[in-house]
């Protein structure tokens, strides 16, 4: 059964997508953050443009930094953003 996932965007990821968040149904067969990004890029060219260079993206699952190979499991919120630049 496909789960619902909120995706939130920050900084230039948000600006280029033109929206702060999406809610998507995670399809069967997609189990990792990286897999979900691949899936989104296939669905919609707007994702493909913004997510083209994966090395420039960082991810958090339920507010914890993760790598692209992290399992989505039952996470409720995925955040996609550039490397952080605070301080």
């Amino acid at each position, binding site marked *: 059964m496909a789960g619902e996932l909120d995706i939130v965007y920050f900084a230039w990821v948000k600006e280029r997508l033109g929206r702060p968040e999406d809610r998507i149904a995670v399809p069967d067969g997609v189990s990792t953050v990286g897999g979900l990004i691949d899936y989104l890029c296939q669905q919609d060219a707007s994702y493909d443009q913004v997510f083209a260079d994966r090395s420039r993206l960082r991810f958090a699952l339920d507010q914890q930094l993760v790598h692209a190979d992290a399992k989505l499991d039952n996470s409720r919120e995925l955040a996609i953003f*550039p490397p952080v630049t605070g301080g």
Partner: protein
Amino acid sequence: MITISVSQKDFDSGAEIRKIADLGGGAVASFTGQVRGDADLVALELEHYPAMTEQALRTIADDAAEKWALHGITIIHRVGRLQVNDQIVLVCTGSDHRQAAISACSFIMDKLKTVAPFWKKEIWKDGSETWVEERQSDLDAAAEWKGRA
């Protein structure tokens, strides 16, 4: 005692240092970061991930408190629109020993730069906007703490 604050409000470094000093350790270190002067810079916009930010900073503070014997840690980070010379961040640490206080302060800044969800956008006089890029030197600084006390 760990104090974390993320808001648009300015802060008073001296008052924060006094609060940490009043906890009784002999040594208080602080780091204050501000918007660096640049004639062409109109403003800096600090975006963050509200659901994550405070917890990320708290985790960094907890890590510091595990590595060093500290009486207090204060981390203040501003968000929103800031002008040249406005204060951005304060880290203040108190300990019985100066090296613990200074090392912890340095560690917290290095971690904050690499794992706390803040993003800076520079707004220029000519109307252009640029997102600040991550710096390799920040990644290197954070990596150096791995395994060190």
